[in-house]
């Protein structure tokens, strides 16, 4: 391999700055790697931190730096969900359960090695379907992991399941060193479950109604307990279905926390008649951005929440929020010939990230202390949309952003609370105005939008919509910039030169990640 990888190019930043030099590191009184953000190692068992620190789905911080890859080796499923239709396969669609190409375990290994050569940020390989990774005896899933462990031992393994076959497979999961498992749990009450699952296949029989939901529920809880008892980290995914399980998700959060789930990820229902799902066809709608946030906020304090999930396709490749699957189709990989294993670039990249991070905890704490001193706690938090391509920096042009990351910033600090898709999909030929409207409706609840650069026209439209475009923090770190902005915002609010923006809502878009905005 002749090409030297420049870390600048990996991070996509114009200029790599050392973490704020003026930061008074000593004053925090502890070594930078052991204090700071709630995501950091301070409140975490070191063994757990070691498992999650480079996993984009398990650590919010890691999702800015690391990439995941799903291999679609598990097409069969053992239950039917009303939000899923595996018949539908449009390459312009992005949601779990969808793939363009199913792979055999051998093809999957080859694809993984090819991607690993090309994307040094790659840290995690997951099997998430397109069916259930443990259905049909889980043959392909374990065959893939068995080979992978031998061929590329530095990559972490994870799998997703609906939980029905989990109790039967926990021993094998432990045996193959799979240290992350995601279970999709949408209910802890069969009455609610019966509205989500028309049937399950269990013990050589198709079960329907309450019986089906009850069996599924019992297996999910048992599987979760068995995994956590073995020290395997479990993330619980819940699909929020307005009017069906929205309020019930609080009970789900409590139940999974009590059984040791590490993270709880509440995702909006993706529902579109064109997908041919039961919910899509019956007009069941998904939640709005604020409805989702209200439920997520209500669960805060229970099992730790994940808000950065992108509901990836079962063959997604790349950083969360991007999908480079198209570059690695079976044909293209076949054409690459023999692919070796070389973890050099990935090691260098991981060391680089490690160094970046250690400086950050202190600089975030300093910025926050500054805000608290200047602002006090009287000002309500605001939302800021950020155009970024990773590395926790404001490093994307407004017009190129396919999604915006949403930060909530207030006297208590700045935190990532979600992301909003703004790319176009299946709509061919839409003009610039449509594109801008899409962006406006997706970030309508934000006070400002941080960008590396922005043109004059969109800038004006944003302003007239009441959203302030901000490019003065170009290429800086997001959280520190958000705090600096908030301090200034609070001052202006105090002087009466601006008004607080409250009571706005935004639209959650759920199209493909593969379609690029122009």
């Amino acid at each position, binding site marked *: 391999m002749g090409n030297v990888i420049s870390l600048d190019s990996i991070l996509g930043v114009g200029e790599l700055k050392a973490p704020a030099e003026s930061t008074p590191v000593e004053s925090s009184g502890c070594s930078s790697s052991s204090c700071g953000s709630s995501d950091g190692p301070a409140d975490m068992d070191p063994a757990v931190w070691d498992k999650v620190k480079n996993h984009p789905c398990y650590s919010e911080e890691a999702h800015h730096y690391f990439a995941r890859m799903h291999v679609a080796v598990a*097409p*069969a*499923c053992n239950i039917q969900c009303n939000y899923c239709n*595996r*018949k539908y396969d449009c390459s312009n669609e992005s949601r779990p359960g969808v793939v363009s190409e199913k792979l055999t375990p051998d093809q999957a290994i080859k694809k993984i090695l090819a991607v690993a050569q090309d994307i040094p940020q790659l840290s995690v390989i997951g099997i998430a379907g397109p069916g259930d990774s443990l*259905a*049909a005896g889980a043959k392909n899933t374990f065959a893939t992991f068995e080979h992978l462990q031998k061929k590329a031992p530095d990559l972490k393994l994870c799998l997703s399941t609906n939980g029905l076959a989990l109790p039967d497979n926990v021993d094998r999961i432990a045996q193959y060193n799979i240290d992350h498992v995601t279970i999709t749990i949408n209910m802890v009450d069969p009455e609610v479950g019966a509205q989500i699952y028309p049937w399950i*296949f269990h013990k*050589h*029989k198709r079960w329907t109604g309450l019986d089906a939901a009850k069996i599924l529920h019992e297996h999910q809880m048992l599987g979760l307990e068995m995994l956590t008892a073995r020290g395997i980290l479990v993330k619980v995914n819940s699909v929020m279905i307005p009017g069906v399980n929205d309020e019930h998700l609080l009970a789900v959060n409590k139940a999974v926390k009590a059984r040791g789930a590490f993270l709880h990820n509440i995702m909006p229902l993706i529902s579109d008649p064109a997908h041919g799902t039961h919910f899509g066809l019956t007009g069941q709608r998904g939640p709005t951005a604020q409805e989702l946030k209200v439920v997520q906020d209500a669960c805060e304090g229970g099992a730790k929440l994940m808000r950065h999930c992108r509901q990836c396709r079962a063959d997604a490749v790349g950083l969360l929020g991007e999908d480079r699957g198209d570059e690695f189709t079976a044909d293209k990989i076949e054409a690459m010939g023999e692919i070796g294993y070389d973890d050099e670039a990935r090691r260098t990249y991981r060391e680089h990230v490690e160094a970046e991070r250690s400086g950050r905890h202190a600089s975030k704490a300093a910025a926050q202390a500054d805000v608290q001193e200047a602002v006090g706690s009287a000002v309500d938090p605001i939302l800021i949309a950020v155009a970024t391509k990773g590395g926790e920096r404001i490093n994307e042009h407004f017009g190129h952003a396919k999604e915006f990351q949403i930060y909530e910033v207030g006297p208590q600090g700045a935190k990532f609370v979600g992301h909003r898709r703004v790319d176009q999909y299946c709509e061919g030929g839409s003009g610039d105005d449509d594109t801008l409207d899409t962006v406006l409706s997706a970030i309508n609840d934000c006070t400002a939008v941080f960008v590396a650069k922005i043109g004059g026209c969109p800038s004006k439209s944003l302003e007239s919509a009441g959203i302030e475009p901000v490019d003065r923090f170009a290429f800086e770190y997001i959280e520190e910039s958000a705090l600096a902005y908030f301090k200034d915002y609070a001052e202006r609010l105090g002087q009466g030169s601006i008004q607080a923006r409250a009571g706005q809502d935004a639209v959650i878009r759920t199209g493909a990640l593969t379609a690029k905005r122009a």
Partner: protein
Amino acid sequence: MAYKIKSAECTVCGACDAECPNMAISLKKGTYVIDPAKCTECKGQFDSPQCAAVCPADCCVPA
């Protein structure tokens, strides 16, 4: 008597293949097919034909 797969509706997921007690189902030229000589409709083995019970597309039907 035997079952068959309506190939136009099949998603090629392989769930039926994994459940068939008689190895009657296999992948031929990109679609799953049931070998009528091997299929017993699961009689004497299970209460209902396994392929039909597991199929997400409900496309395993009496031939």
